[in-house]
């Protein structure tokens, strides 16, 4: 039996306080719901598979101190040395992906086109490229030593073959038959044959809109924008990093060497998203806590105010559980009002954020889950005071306040 009517009329006498709690719950739902979709989106973004062996890769670069340095010669000697090191599974000279720095290009499926390019990130590398990045070849073949050219950055060298990611292959050739087809640079008629397709590679900018469209060319490029990409045996990356730092300096001390773990670089790339996740989670938990405190505070206050009435009810035969139930039901009604208000507020707030700041839309299911959780928290906050109210002795009724 639910004593809804007396609760309603009692609430009506405290309508402002009750409304304040409901408004609090509503606003909280609006904030928590919207924060949750943003958090979800960022977590999913960070958790995307990158297509490369992030946790095993060590990257290294150097800058020569002397002028007129023979970089290509250094690449050869360094790589020969690196590949002999214990714990190294594979190594190439290319550019580290996932770090926010790289180069992009426009590709066409027919010669001499200038409009409607498919954008992609581009990398160069030798025959160890796929192995060193830990990518998975899904069709065709890897580069062979004969495919590799040593080229200078501004020489106008053009590749005649390429490996692309599955995503880029699908974008270029919607019929799914990219292997063996030719692609072209803007305004050129030099065919570049697709000889292999790798499963995935998010490229230099994982947060860009066409991340994952990536193309690899068979070359060792003479440029200052290079990284040695060294894949260590599982669990060996720290040892390999230390060894690299030592041995690169030892082989030629006339240069400044920098060695990094790819995972650290990726963490830095995602630092902004990660900050957003943490700050929003902090806001959500503090907010929930504050609201819970408010509910506890107000329930305690109401119960103190109504001690006498509770005593009278107990004296008239109401059981302990009936008293607790009364306050919990009261809380339930307030919470329901709040959540109805909050669901509307959450949608309005979300429309605003989505239109102004391109934030993701808030699905009703997320709102519902957040609402359920808030419901639970609200009840839990009221539970302790409500149980304590049940302990008020019927003798209270006989005492004057």
């Amino acid at each position, binding site marked *: 039996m639910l004593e809804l009517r007396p609760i309603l009329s009692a609430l009506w006498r405290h309508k*402002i306080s009750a409304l304040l709690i409901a408004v609090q719950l509503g606003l909280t739902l609006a904030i928590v719901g919207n924060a949750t979709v943003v958090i979800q989106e960022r977590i999913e973004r960070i958790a995307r598979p990158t297509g490369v062996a992030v946790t095993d890769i060590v990257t290294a670069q150097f*800058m020569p101190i002397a002028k007129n340095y023979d970089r290509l010669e250094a690449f050869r000697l360094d790589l020969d040395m690196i590949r002999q090191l214990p714990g190294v599974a594979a190594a190439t000279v290319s550019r580290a992906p996932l770090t926010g720095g790289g180069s992009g290009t426009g590709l066409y499926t027919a010669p001499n086109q200038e409009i409607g390019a498919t954008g992609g990130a581009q990398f160069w590398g030798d025959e160890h490229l796929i192995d060193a990045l830990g990518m998975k070849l899904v069709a065709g073949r890897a580069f062979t030593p004969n495919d590799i050219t040593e080229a200078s950055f501004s020489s106008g060298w053009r590749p005649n073959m390429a490996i692309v990611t599955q995503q880029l292959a699908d974008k270029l050739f919607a019929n799914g038959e990219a292997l063996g087809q030719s692609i072209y640079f803007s305004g050129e008629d030099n065919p570049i044959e697709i000889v292999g397709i790798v499963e995935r590679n998010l490229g230099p900018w994982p947060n860009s809109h066409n991340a994952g469209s990536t193309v690899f060319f068979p070359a060792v490029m003479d440029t200052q924008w290079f990284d040695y990409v060294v894949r260590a045996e599982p669990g060996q990356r720290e040892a390999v990093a230390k060894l690299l730092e030592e041995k690169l300096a030892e082989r030629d001390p006339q240069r400044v060497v920098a060695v990094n773990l790819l995972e650290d670089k990726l963490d830095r790339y995602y630092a902004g998203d990660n*900050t957003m996740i943490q700050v929003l989670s902090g806001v959500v938990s503090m907010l929930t806590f504050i609201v819970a405190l*408010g509910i506890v505070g107000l329930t305690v206050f109401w119960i103190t105010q109504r001690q006498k009435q509770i005593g009278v009810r107990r004296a008239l035969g109401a059981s302990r559980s009936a008293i607790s139930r009364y306050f919990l039901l009261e809380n339930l009604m307030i919470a329901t009002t709040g959540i109805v208000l909050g669901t509307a507020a959450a949608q309005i707030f979300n429309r605003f954020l989505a239109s102004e700041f391109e934030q993701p839309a808030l699905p009703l299911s997320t709102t519902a889950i957040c609402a359920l959780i808030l419901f639970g928290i609200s009840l839990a906050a009221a539970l302790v005071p409500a149980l304590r109210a049940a302990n008020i002795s019927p003798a209270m009724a006989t005492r004057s306040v």
Partner: protein
Amino acid sequence: MIGYYFSLAMRSLRGTPILSALMVAAIAVGVGASMTVLTLNYMMSQNALSHKDEVLFAVQLDSWDPNASYRGDSNLTRMPWELTYRDAQALLRSDTPSRQVAMHRWGATVTVDDSEMRPFIGQTRVTTRDFFALFDVDFLHGGTWEKNADSNPAQQVVITRKTNEKLFGGENSVGETINMDGHPFTVIGVIENWNPVPKVHDLNNGAFDDSEAFYIPFGLHRKLEIFSWGNTNSWKHEEDLEGFEGFLQSESVWIQYWVELHTDEQKQRFENFLTSYIQEQKAQGRFERPLKFGLTQPSEWLVVNEVLRDDNRVLGWLSLAFLLVCVVNAVALLLAKFLRKAPEAGVRRALGASRNAIFTQHLIESVCIGILGGLMGILLSMFGLSAVKSLAMGFADRIAQMDWLMMLSAVGLAVVASLLAGLYPAWRISRTSPSIYLKTQ
């Protein structure tokens, strides 16, 4: 009277320690969270060039691909942020602006002969001689290079005070030699440390990075084959261009350009110059898009470059909504607290206190809560900022700090929040009729 109300308020707060602590905590957490976010947004919106905001202009020319957008989206009207090398050279020949700067970021290994110092990579800016005067950078020793060095190679370098301390122990190092990528450079000037946040003069390469430590003349590109360490964007395939010279003549954009124009007339003349330059180039088959250029003041430049990102704005709104919840929370708790003290107010009313007096007294009590909450809020936001600093992995080091203005704002925000929170409860208690409470006493 106000003093008496304050002492009443403090007594009343001590009287209900738990409820008071809850309210102070609610205000403190609300203020702490919003001030953390607002401080970040405030620091990110600073304009280090505000004193020259009326006379400085970032120059953009629309030399981009007529068939594709600059950013790879569908907006064909967006201009590139930077200029091509050949356009920058052409603009430098104009004598209309009082000062003008063409520049880009670069880096080189730095060594000093006969020094024990380990070689390091020096962050460098390749720029024209007006850089220091245009951006108001003060010299400690020496000065900038001759005009000639902007178009002919001169291996001269200006270093910052901090670099001077690192390399030469803070002595006047004018005339000393350092090696950059193995090339000897003569130090001709030492500047005061100059590190605007955000880096308004160069927003392409990390708006919150440190400014460069070395400054070298713009006439060195051909001799040292300098490629930019900033963004280089190209759209056109030019088969006839080969080697470094080909790169310099290409449609690649990589040069940042600023001018100083003091009068409207001067600005008009410069605009005419740009218009006729673009028309001239159009006649030669370049600048295929509709004629367009941009002259943007620093304050506007910060906005169009989206230094304050959408994420920051979203957090700003969320934190204000958070503060609102805390205020509503405080209203509910204050109402409870004041109503519990209603008998006291009844007695005061019966003894002749006016409704206004009761109202003021209770409002002052909520202001006390606000001040306490604000002070705690400052501590909380300092904690919040240091958390953000460590989360951002170095990206926020120079923006996650509070200045005096922000601390005052924190207390101000807390007082306003608590005043708002106190209005209704104080009004409500001032309306209670004294007779009810007198009867029950």
